[in-house]
């Protein structure tokens, strides 16, 4: 066969191969999100415990994805987890927004939920979310439940209390 035709075919082959890779990267995977997703601002939220939250987990408000977790690190001084959240440009949240780590379903992946407040001042780039709520840890929940059950076995009625307010000291609790 003619060399030119072979070259042409190999060229076509390589190009459609690369196009396939681009398709997998962009359409199937999420290498580059859409432009509106890339444009946005970043805020920080400090949690006592983020549970099994991971980078690239969604940030949702009222169930709508409004951003992604950019990175997670530990603050060496306060021993708090600092999550940087990338929020898409078109969504604005007020200063008194509460960030919480939720689990989708009983065993699903964890995400950050934002609950908008009533403040008229909006969060800007590099702002901090003041109020956060940590992840619910099932192990702690259960151990506390069992512990209280064991210690308060004479008065069964009291056993309901820990379940209602599972972690009095650290697990939950809205910080001021």
């Amino acid at each position, binding site marked *: 066969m003619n*060399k030119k035709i*072979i*070259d042409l*075919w*190999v060229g*076509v*082959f*390589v190009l*459609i*191969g*690369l196009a*396939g*890779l681009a*398709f*997998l*990267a962009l*359409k*199937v*995977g*999420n*290498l580059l999100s859409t432009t509106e997703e890339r444009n946005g601002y970043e805020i920080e939220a400090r949690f006592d415990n983020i549970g099994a939250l991971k980078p*690239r987990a*969604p940030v949702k408000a009222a169930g709508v*994805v409004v951003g992604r977790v950019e990175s997670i690190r530990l603050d060496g001084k306060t021993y708090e987890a600092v999550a940087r959240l990338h929020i898409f440009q078109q969504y604005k949240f007020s200063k008194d927004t509460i960030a919480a780590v939720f689990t989708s379903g009983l065993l699903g992946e964890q995400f950050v939920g934002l609950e908008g407040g009533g403040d008229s001042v909006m969060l800007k780039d590099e702002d901090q979310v003041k109020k956060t709520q940590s992840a619910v840890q099932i192990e702690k929940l259960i151990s506390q439940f069992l512990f209280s059950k064991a210690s308060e076995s004479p008065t069964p009625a009291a056993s309901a209390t820990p379940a209602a307010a599972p972690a009095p000291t650290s697990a939950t609790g809205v910080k001021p």
Partner: protein
Amino acid sequence: MNALIEVIRGIGASVIGGVSRIGYATRFLFTILAHSGTSFMRPRLVVREVYQAGVLSLIIVCMSGLFVGMVLALQGYETLSRYGASESMGVLVAMALVRELGPVVAGLLFASRAGSAMTAEIGLMKTTEQLAAMEVMAVDPIARVVAPRFWGGVISLPLLAVLFSTLGVFGGFLVAVKLIGVDSGAFWSQMQASVDWHYGVLNGVIKSVVFGIAVSLISVFEGYDADPTAEGVSAATTRTVVTSALAILALDFVLTVFMFRGEIN
């Protein structure tokens, strides 16, 4: 008693034979790498082999990808619809294809379509003394014949695996959205939310590169090492397909353990 000793002796001999063959093949790989200069200086040699190995495998790989994707979607629907999660079909199809089926099935197809052809061609060149003729012409057959074929295979397989996955996702899309009626937006968005570029796509490509090296090496090695007779070439071709398939599946396991361990934690 004697029969038992014979059996043990046979097992030992085949183990030693197998290990020394692996050693020989590894040495052969280094020889190829050392003689790859010609391939890079004269890309046309490699382009020709990319045509032979890649372009000519295009149709079988694309068709298989399409059908595998369609079947995956159909089977996935069976299970997922029971949990009311038929929107996750995109995730299922894409995950399975990009991470596993793309590289593995494309590799198997490549071994039987292009690898066997490579083995037969080199084996026949050896049988008809073409390799010896080259050597006597002071042309190194490894540099001129073996290395370009090796690189042609290494370049072709990742591209074929990517196309397999792409066509598979498209096939899944056809079945899920057009046939079953899953919402197209949900299909794509769920897929994008779950398939990670690094863990999904990139690792799949890395796998296919490793498979490309393994299959190409096995193919050219078996061809070069074939007995210069008709049976020798036919046995070598068979060995290429069998060994390649085993190598792909074993390597797939090893690579999966290394790659996805991080994500499981």
